[in-house]
Structure formats: structure tokens, C-alpha cells
């Protein structure tokens, strides 16, 4: 059986399901027999799950307004001078 260290090194491949067939078997065997690695897998999965559930930050309206103003200025100056970009 592969060691815990080996398993850990391949953890992403295991979680993202990118390991090739023979490695996948090794990893599954290890995790089914090693309580430590089982817990590490479980808690890493939960870690990723809570991060994926994180809501994107609202942009403060003042920030949003200033962004639109800056864009508008740039677009207007482009139109006024008629310069081709680059």
C-alpha cells in the first residue's frame, strides 16, 4: 500500500478526480484503510465546499459609480479624438 505521504501528495488528483486508473485504485484503497487520510479527505472536501458557497462581494455603489465614470471618460475621449487604439 502507498504511504500517507504519497497519498497526501496525490490528494488533489484524488479530490479533483484527475488521477489515472491505477493511481486512483491505489488512492481509494489507501483511504479505505487509513482513518487519518479518510479524515483529511473529508475535511478538505468540506473546506472546499464552504469556500465554493461563499457569496461574491457586492461592489459598493460608490465604487461602481466611479468605475462607470472612468469608463465613460475613456470612451468619450476615444470618440472625441477618433484615435485608433494601439
Amino acid at each position: 500500500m502507498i504511504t500517507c505521504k504519497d497519498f497526501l501528495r496525490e490528494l488533489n488528483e484524488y479530490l479533483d478526480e484527475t488521477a489515472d486508473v491505477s493511481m486512483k485504485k491505489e488512492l481509494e484503497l489507501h483511504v479505505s484503510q487509513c482513518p487519518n487520510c479518510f479524515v483529511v479527505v473529508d475535511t478538505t472536501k468540506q473546506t472546499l465546499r464552504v469556500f465554493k458557497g461563499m457569496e461574491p462581494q457586492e461592489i459598493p455603489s460608490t465604487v461602481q459609480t466611479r468605475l462607470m465614470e472612468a469608463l465613460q471618460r475613456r470612451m468619450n475621449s476615444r470618440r472625441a479624438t477618433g484615435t485608433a487604439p494601439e
Partner: protein
Amino acid sequence: MAQATAVFDEAPLLERARAGDAEAFTELVQHYERRIYRLAKHITQNDEDAEDVLQETFLKAFEHLPGFQGNSKFYTWVTRIAVNEALMKLRKRKSDKTVPLDEPVDTGDELMVREIAVWEENAEEKYSRQEMNDILQKAVDGLKPDFRTVFVLRDIEELSTEETAEALGISVPAVKSRLLRARLQLREKLTRQFKRKGENIFDYL
């Protein structure tokens, strides 16, 4: 949000924008601005810098749009601009401090696994959304910039490994190695926070 992106058909907008249609470009901006702002905040960890990054990113995108080949997705391309801007800000800030951005890639080759404990049942339901966001934000902020950036792109913005490598200008193996360390460090922190109290692995065996 990932779903919203999937149904959003940017191709016609992009084409109009590239032909100089300001309205179309504005629509593209409005579609991606929250994600770019979030990304900028995660990397720079500073409101003022994040706003600068947001503006610079879309101004540059507007400037260079005619040269955008469409080989990569618009979002990947814009993300790449944003990451560059954000890293520049970060370097500028860090240069006043003692922590160099380009620390040796790894301090200790060990993959960190110290806290081995199961989480409480429905741990995150014990916290309000705001508290939870704060916990997660703090955990990410505690990562080294190299790790943090890769984690944010891969696991929060859900770019592929290849897209992340492209956006950061680093190799695919470097993305993988940083991502593994980032994930393990975050696992460590969150497990410390959420573990079932009064229990350790030996109860489990």
C-alpha cells in the same frame, strides 16, 4: 453564479464591443465586475487597491480589446489583466514591509497535516453568513500571496488549472503544488475552527 456565467452568451456582445460598441462593452463590464472586484480584494487585501485594480483592469481591457484574439475566454483574459494589476499593487505595498513577495517557494517541504479531527455536524450552520464570510476571508488572507492567488483563482473563481497557470504566467506543476499547499493550510485552519470538540482521532479508530 457559475451557472449564470454558463447561460450568459458573451460572443455577440464581445463582437459588438470589439467593433467599438461602447454599450456592449459596458454590459460585459457589468457582468464581470463583481468577480473581478472580489478577486482584486482577495489578492490585494485592501479596498483602495481593489478599486484601482477594478478600474485599471476594465480600462486596459477596453484599450486592448481590438487586439484580443478570442483564443481564450473574455473572462480569462480580463482575469489575467486583473491578476497582473493586483500583483503589482501587492508588490508595491509589500515593499514597505519586511515580507518579500518572492519568498523561497516553500518553507519546509512538508505538506502540513497536524489537525486530524472530524468537523461538527453542520458546522457552518452555527454561524451567520457574515460570520462565515469573515472566517473564510481571514483564513484566505492568512495564506502567502503565492498560495492565496492560486487558491482564489482555482477554488473560488473556478478557473481550470491551465487557465490559472495562464493567468499567473506560471507552470501547471507550480499551480498544482501551490494549490495543494493552499488547500491543506486552509483545511488546517478551518478544522481548528470547526472540529468536533472534545474528540480526537483515537475516538474514531
